[in-house]
C-alpha cells in the first residue's frame, strides 16, 4: 500500500502545466510585492506632505516618489496583464487536455463501432439464408397441411354432418327433402317387402323395454 504502484500517473502535460503555473506563481508573488511597495510609498508620500504642508508639493523628493509610484503602478499593470495571459494559457492547455481526452474517447468509440460492424459483415448472407430457410419452412408447412389435412378436411366435414343428421335427425332438412305428395294415383302398388319376419323383429325390440320396467317394480 502507498507504494509506487498506487501513484497517480504524471504525464508530460502535467509537467508542462506545472512549469506554467510556477511562473504564474512567480508573477503572482511579484504583483503582491509590488502592491505592498506601492502602498508603503504612497503612505510615505502622504506623510511627507503632511509634515511639510507649505512646500511639500514643490519638494523634488515628493515628485520623485510620485514618479516612482507611477512607474511601479505601470509595472504592476503589466504584470497583471501577463498574469492574466498565463492564466488564460493554463486554462487553454487544461481545456486542450480535456479535448484530447474527448478525442481519445471518440477514437475508442469509433474503433469499437468498426469492430462491431466488422462482425456484421456476414449479415447479408445470413439474412439471405435465413430467408431461404423461412421459405423452405413455409413450403414444408404447405406440403404437410395439404397432404394430411387439406384433402381429408372435406371428407371429415361431410362425415361429421352425416353423423349429426343421424343423431339429431334432419329436422330442418326433412320438410325440404320431402318429395311432393303424389297427385296421381299410383299406377301400380309398390312392391312391399314381405312381412314374414316382422313379428320376430318386434319381439326383439320389445323385450329390452319391458325389462327395466320390471326391475323398477322390484325396486
Amino acid at each position, binding site marked *: *500500500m*502507498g507504494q509506487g*504502484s*498506487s501513484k497517480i500517473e504524471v504525464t508530460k502535460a502535467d509537467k508542462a502545466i506545472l512549469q506554467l503555473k510556477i511562473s504564474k506563481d512567480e508573477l503572482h508573488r511579484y504583483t503582491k510585492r509590488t502592491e505592498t511597495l506601492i502602498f508603503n510609498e504612497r503612505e510615505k508620500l502622504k506623510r511627507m506632505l503632511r509634515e511639510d504642508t507649505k512646500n511639500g508639493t514643490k519638494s523634488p523628493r515628493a515628485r520623485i516618489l510620485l514618479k516612482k509610484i507611477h512607474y511601479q503602478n505601470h509595472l504592476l499593470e503589466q504584470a497583471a496583464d501577463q498574469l492574466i495571459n498565463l492564466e488564460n494559457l493554463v486554462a487553454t492547455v487544461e481545456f486542450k487536455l480535456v479535448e484530447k481526452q474527448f478525442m481519445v474517447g471518440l477514437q475508442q468509440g469509433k474503433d469499437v463501432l468498426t469492430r462491431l460492424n466488422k462482425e456484421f459483415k456476414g449479415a447479408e448472407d445470413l439474412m439471405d439464408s435465413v430467408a431461404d430457410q423461412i421459405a423452405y419452412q413455409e413450403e414444408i408447412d404447405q406440403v404437410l397441411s395439404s397432404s394430411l389435412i387439406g384433402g381429408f378436411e372435406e371428407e371429415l366435414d361431410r362425415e361429421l354432418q352425416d353423423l349429426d343428421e343421424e343423431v339429431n335427425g334432419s329436422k330442418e332438412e326433412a320438410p325440404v327433402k320431402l318429395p311432393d305428395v303424389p297427385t296421381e294415383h299410383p299406377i301400380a302398388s309398390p312392391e312391399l317387402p314381405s312381412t314374414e319376419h316382422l313379428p320376430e323383429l318386434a319381439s326383439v325390440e320389445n323385450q329390452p323395454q319391458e325389462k327395466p320396467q320390471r326391475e323398477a317394480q322390484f325396486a
Partner: protein
Amino acid sequence: MRHGLAAFNAERSEHYEATATLLSRQNRELDLQLNAFQEKLVDFAKDHNSELKANPDFRVKFIKMCSSIGIDPICLFDKERHLFDVNDYFYEICVKVIELCRHTQDLNGGVISFDELHKGHFQQLKVDMADLQKAVEMLETLDGGLEVFTIKNKKYLRSVPNELTNDHTKILEVCSVLGYASVSLLRINMDWMPVRSDAVLKEMVAKGMLWVDGQAAGETIYWDPAWIVRSHDD
C-alpha cells in the same frame, strides 16, 4: 488504469472517503434527533411532573434514561414548580459537586472554594449559592470525607481524605489575601519559625494543594491555585 493490487488500493481510499462522509452525515442526523428527543424529554418531565413526584420507581428510571442520553438531570428541575421532589434536585447537585471535586483534584490538591464551584460550574446551570450550600451540607452529613471550612469568611470544600491541620488552614488563610504564602510572609503574619513554615509549605506542595514559584524576588513563594479563578473575576 491501475491493475493488480493497486486497483484495490484506489477503491479502498474511495471507500474510505465515502464512509467518512456517510458517517459524518449520520452523526449530524443523530445529533439532530437527539436534540429533538432531549427537548421532548424535558417537556415530558414538565407535563408529568406530579406522576414523577408520586412514583419514585418511575422517577429513578426516568432520570437514568435522561443521563444516559446526555441530559444533565439538573436541567430538568424547576425549583419554583417543584419538579420531581425537591430533594432529588439537591441530590443531583451533590453528585455534581463530587464530580467536580474529583475532576479538579490534580489542579488544586482537593481544596476548592465555594466561589470557584459556583462561578465555574453551577452558575450556567442556574443553581444559586444557597442551593449549593444546602447540597454540600447534605454531603457533609454523609461523612464521606468532605469537609467545609472557612477562611476569612470564605467557605472552602476539602475533598481529599487527609485531615487539614490547623497550620494548613492558616496558610490557606494567608493565601486567600495575596494568592500566595512564603516563609517570610508567615514569619511576619503568624510569627512562625522558618523551619516550621518550610515544612508545612513543602508538605502542602507534596499534597498538591500549593504550587511552587521559584522566580519571585528573594525567596520561593507558594501559590494557591484558587487564585486562577479569583484573578479572573477581578
